[in-house]
């Protein structure tokens, strides 16, 4: 690259965004921990954490959040990989397939929750169809506050429907980055579909998978709208507890403890994925 005539220019261009992120990203992050570890008179204390851990809703929120992540992510990756392979197979109307699979990218989790509420409601579409087919003779109550299993199931469905597209897009971009020669070479050596998948596609997709996994897990820790829309207060997650503590119980210290916990878990999971799934560059150091 050639020497700059204006040595200060890039810094001048960076200053606004740097300042903005310092005020609205770095500062609140520090403040989240400040609030979580302080009381009203700014004295350092673990009181908010104790309140959070001792609260009856805490354990349920934490386990549901983790359970949802463990259930949703494999389903989403399987679906997204299938979609990405279809898009990459150069079928007719390949642009159309990509668009259709990408549609949920623009749908909020609240809207997705309400869409699936229309399906899983007692007088909703699923019961209508099942009864129409003669498979049931009484309406199934999916969204019952007593039946946590069904609630979790409906949330998993809604999230698999809504948030698979983002993974799909990342995987399609990754697939397109694989040189065609690799597939041709595999064909020449008579590789079957599964061999191609295991030996060519998965290793080459590793960086994309890693990015998608990190992104998806962080988003899953913030799951909120979809849970409230489908389960109401029937089941809670970390973000909805943070909202409850801030909004209903008006305790920003405990709410901040929840945000600090979500931050901590997100960063921890990112580090975990970076260590467990090193891409080739990282392996080489």
């Amino acid at each position, binding site marked *: 690259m050639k020497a700059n005539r204006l040595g200060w220019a890039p810094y001048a261009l960076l200053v606004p965004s740097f300042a903005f992120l310092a005020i609205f*990203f770095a500062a609140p992050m520090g403040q989240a921990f400040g*609030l979580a570890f302080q009381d009203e008179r700014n004295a350092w204390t673990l009181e908010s954490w104790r309140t959070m851990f001792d609260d009856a809703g805490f354990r349920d929120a934490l386990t549901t959040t983790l359970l949802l992540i463990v259930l949703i992510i494999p389903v989403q990756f399987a679906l997204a990989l299938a979609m990405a392979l279809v898009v990459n197979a150069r*079928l007719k109307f390949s642009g159309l397939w990509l668009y259709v699979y990408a549609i949920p990218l623009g749908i909020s989790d609240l809207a997705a929750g309400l*869409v699936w509420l229309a*399906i899983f409601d007692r007088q909703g579409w699923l*019961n*209508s169809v099942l009864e129409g087919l003669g498979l049931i003779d009484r309406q199934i109550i999916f969204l019952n506050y007593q039946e946590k299993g069904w609630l979790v199931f409906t949330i998993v469905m809604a999230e698999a429907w809504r948030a698979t597209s983002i993974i799909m897009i990342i995987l399609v*971009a990754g697939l397109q980055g694989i040189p065609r020669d690799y597939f041709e070479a595999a064909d020449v050596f008579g590789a079957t579909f599964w061999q191609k998948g295991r030996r060519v596609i998965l290793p080459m997709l590793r960086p994309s998978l890693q990015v998608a996994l990190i992104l998806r897990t962080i988003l899953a820790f913030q799951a909120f709208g979809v849970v409230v829309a489908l389960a109401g207060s029937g089941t809670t997650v970390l973000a909805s507890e943070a909202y409850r503590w801030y909004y209903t119980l008006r305790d920003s210290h405990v709410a*901040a403890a929840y*945000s600090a916990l979500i931050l901590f878990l997100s960063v921890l999971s990112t580090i975990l994925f970076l260590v467990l799934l090193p891409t080739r560059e990282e392996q080489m150091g």
Partner: protein
Amino acid sequence: MIGVARDLPRTAGIEAQATTAGRQARARRRLVGRGLLYVAATLLALWVLVPLYLITITAFSPRDVVYGYPKEIIPSTLSTETIRFFINAEGVLASLWRSVLVALITLALSTIIGAPAGYAVARYAFRGREAFRLTILSTRAFPIVILSIPLAVTFINWGLYDSIWSVALMHTALAMPFTILITSSIFVGVPRDLEEAALTLGCTPAAAFLRVVMPLALPGLAAASIFTFVLSWNEVFAASILTLRERTLPALILSTLNDSLLPFRFAAAWFMLAPSLVFIFVIRRYLLGLWGRVAR
């Protein structure tokens, strides 16, 4: 094996026959494979489209049909009654307007502040460039919306709480890393030679940027802006935390979930997702570029 047979001179009739049979078998297998792919493609498309179809006909059924059971997959009556009921409900139009304003402010702020940084990262070799890029990348490891709780305290002190500005500033923080990465990859895609040619021909750097770089970068920037708009339009957690009365549409819908009627909720869902369908359609050609590049 078949490949080898094909290359041999076709002298023996049997061999030729075997080859043809092999080729046909292979062609048939390919055809079946192709067929299965189309079946898979269609099933996956239905998975996405059927819920959209269902919410659409629900939103466009009269209210008594929305409550009715069993429901008809092919509706016999369509009406805008439910949608009108939603739009005319208290506070909906005002919050709709607020949502649009917040999204526009977010879009403007994140472009004005983020795009120059993207340009700097794309065009200049300067000390600290990698560090800056990595810092921006690493912000993805943080759930930014969660920061709305400490930010709420700050906004109360600043007197900004419960206004469209508090939500817009939060959304800008959410969109900023995305905007910087995207704009930088868009500017990388604009050939440097053209810009330098303009400079040699006597353009000032600003004129070269406005006359040469901008027209080429504009479609990509527009796509990124639309994506930012959708991001803000959809966001519910921060908007719910940062407002009390000045609700954006998703925040209003969320806060009334406990009391609102089913037709209201279904119409609300349709109303929230309908614009996104159009937006995603408009930027469909850029989706891979937008997300694919960021993923690298």
